């Protein structure tokens, strides 16, 4: 009897375990956590396949784009509205003798506001597509200097026209490597005092980051474009783009590394920005008349930087 009772009890225990395991399985399931997001709809996929298998060449007969004549200029300023943030020093934890000035680490440049004019430096503004490019905005096969000193990239936001050559220089007594993200993907050691020439080939839609793996605090941004319709604001927040094609809708992209929009695009909702139909991707469109010089003086509230 006694023997049998224990037998029954163990069975019971087994059953409880079985039930517990099953409940557990029921609750947890065995889906992977990474199986998130939608999956394809077979009938829609079949249609897409058929379309892409078809002949896609000879599709040039689309509506003609209006291209005007003559050239125009867009210039302006980005002025900060609010209390400018104080820049903390870079976290220099290697090569301190070479990477500090009198023992002090250089200040970061994530958001530079000029104390006198309140102008915002390092805002990138560029044309997304242009049907005509003036010769002054085309690459001239130039060597453009990209230097680093005291373990700081001297061009914090570096606009670049494809076709030119980038001279990556190291003006420090310590070695660097320059690691450019994105489609051009460059990563090479730059020895003390030397200059390495690099010819990027591909355009980027927004600036990509440039780092040094040896000194990870070093940070800059690189913006290669197919034409010279690109500007980066100077210390007083001003910019000017000359010889833009007049008579067509030009879409500009505006970017700042600390801006709160998608991909660090600068999104403005001020009345003057609304007039330009400034989008949630930091873009606006203008159509310039021949020889027009359009001036845009934009106020940027601190909340555009999430401050």
């Amino acid at each position, binding site marked *: 009897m006694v023997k*049998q009772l224990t037998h*029954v009890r163990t*069975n019971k225990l087994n*059953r409880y375990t*079985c*039930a517990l395991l*099953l409940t557990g*399985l*029921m609750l947890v*399931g*065995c*889906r*992977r956590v*990474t199986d*998130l*997001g*939608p*999956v*394809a*709809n*077979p009938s*829609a*996929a079949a249609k*897409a*396949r*058929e*379309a*892409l298998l078809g002949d*896609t060449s000879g*599709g040039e007969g*689309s509506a003609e784009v209006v291209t005007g004549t003559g050239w125009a200029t867009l210039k302006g300023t980005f002025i900060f509205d609010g209390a400018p943030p104080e820049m903390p020093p870079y976290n220099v934890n*290697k*090569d*301190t*003798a070479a990477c500090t000035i009198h023992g002090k680490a250089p200040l970061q440049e994530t958001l530079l506001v000029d104390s006198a004019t309140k102008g915002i430096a390092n805002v990138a503004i560029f044309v997304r597509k242009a049907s005509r490019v003036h010769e002054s905005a085309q690459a001239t096969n130039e060597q453009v200097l990209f230097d680093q000193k005291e373990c700081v990239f001297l061009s914090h936001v570096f606009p670049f026209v494809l076709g030119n050559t980038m001279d990556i220089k190291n003006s420090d*007594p*310590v*070695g660097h*490597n320059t690691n450019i993200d994105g489609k051009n*993907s*460059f*990563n*090479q*050691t730059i*020895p*003390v005092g*030397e200059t*390495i*020439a*690099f010819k990027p080939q591909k355009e980027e*839609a927004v600036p990509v980051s440039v780092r040094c*793996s*040896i000194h*990870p605090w070093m940070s800059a941004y690189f913006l290669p474009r197919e034409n010279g319709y690109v500007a980066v604001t100077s210390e007083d927040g001003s910019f000017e783009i000359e010889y833009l094609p007049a008579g067509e809708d030009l879409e500009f992209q505006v970017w700042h590394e600390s801006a709160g929009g*998608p*991909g*660090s695009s600068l999104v403005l909702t001020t009345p003057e920005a609304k007039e330009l139909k400034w*989008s*949630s*991707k930091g873009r606006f469109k203008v159509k310039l008349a021949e020889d027009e010089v359009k001036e845009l003086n934009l106020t940027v509230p601190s909340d555009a930087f999430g401050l």
Partner: protein
Amino acid sequence: MSTFKNNNEFGSRLMNHGLRTICLVSSLVALNLAGCDFHAPQFHLNMVQMLSDATPTPKPYQEQIADVLDGMFGTPDEPFALPETGLDIRKLKMSAGPAWTDKKGAAFGLYRQHCVHCHGIDGDGQGPTALFLNPYPRDYRQGVYKFKSTYNPAKPTDEDLQRVLINGIPGSAMPSFSLLASAEIESLVEYVKYLSFRGQMETALTNYVYNDLGEEEITDEIGEPVLDDEGEPVTKLIPLDPENDEEQRTAITEMLAEIVEGWNEANEQIIVPEEDAIPTDVENLKALAASAAKGRELFYGTRANCMKCHGPTGLGDGQQDDFDIWNKAHKQFLDSVADGSGEPQLATEREEVAASLYPIRNAIPRNLRNGIYRGGNRRIDLFWRIYAGIAGSPMPGSGPASPGAQGTLTEEEMWNIVDYVLSLPYEDASRPQRALPINTELVN
């Protein structure tokens, strides 16, 4: 007494039987409810990219991208490749689908038999075992591979991928598959490339949708914008619909062509060392020692700068703060989720995806005293690493970045470093050599 006992036994057996049935039935119900995937596995999207701060992708677009990708590449069970990809569909079919063997003994479903548990069905490097591995398995979707014979930004050649499959990756969990038939290796290489093509196409589509599609203002019959109650223009999403939009079809064809071109170019991007730059006759120990001595000087000097990351003793204990591109992408995503930036409408989804990611790891420079070389231990393997750097990792190259470009070191100098690195494991470990004075005084 005995009848009673029998009755009791009978009763308990009956009860046992009943409970067993209940157990079985409930287990089946439970499994069905829990959705333990008995159905065919499906490709999923790269949600880190879909919900990233740079390309926030609304749900309808996610669905449309999944549809277009399925149209272009099929499913894990039924792979497909457009003719312009140049992918061999027969090779793909050998690796795709569930694992089985036909009557003649030919194996199918090779990817699921050998690879999926680490590299995942999407090739995202997040298979069930991935969490327990260090380094994490490769995510193929960026099309970036470390151990190859080509220039840094170039794709690997088929031979490069085959070499990794045959040799495995020493020092990682990647085993050797040298026992597989060569046709099977070729099929797996084709399938890995297929997963890369698919992943790269997904990135291209995500960028395209963000950059060139998106919201459009609705206009009425006379072309005036339709306004809502607050006077704001009403917008709608321009659908990703290559079936009905010729411009999109052309754009997609161009994106695919660019991806395919990158892979097809790999064979022209192989780094072939100059014969006369190979300075050392490895049989000649004196010459080898002289070459290693020059290499040592470069290793610790400010021109090659190896020591900055690999450390003053070559233990890999120099700069350890950087990340590889795969961890960096996840880190950027986690940081942006943590600081609450990004599209508010996607916030819940973003948090869900963030919670599903594995812990971020730093890229730790290789300990060169172990004598374990992940990309192979031949002199040419080390030469390629030093020449081109290691794509995706912080390791920079010292040779030209592309054919004809300007290098940092000469080929001879790079061979010197190869010789020194190969001799490093045999240096006295208890009295490691110190760095040269030229670089030590700057290290604080």
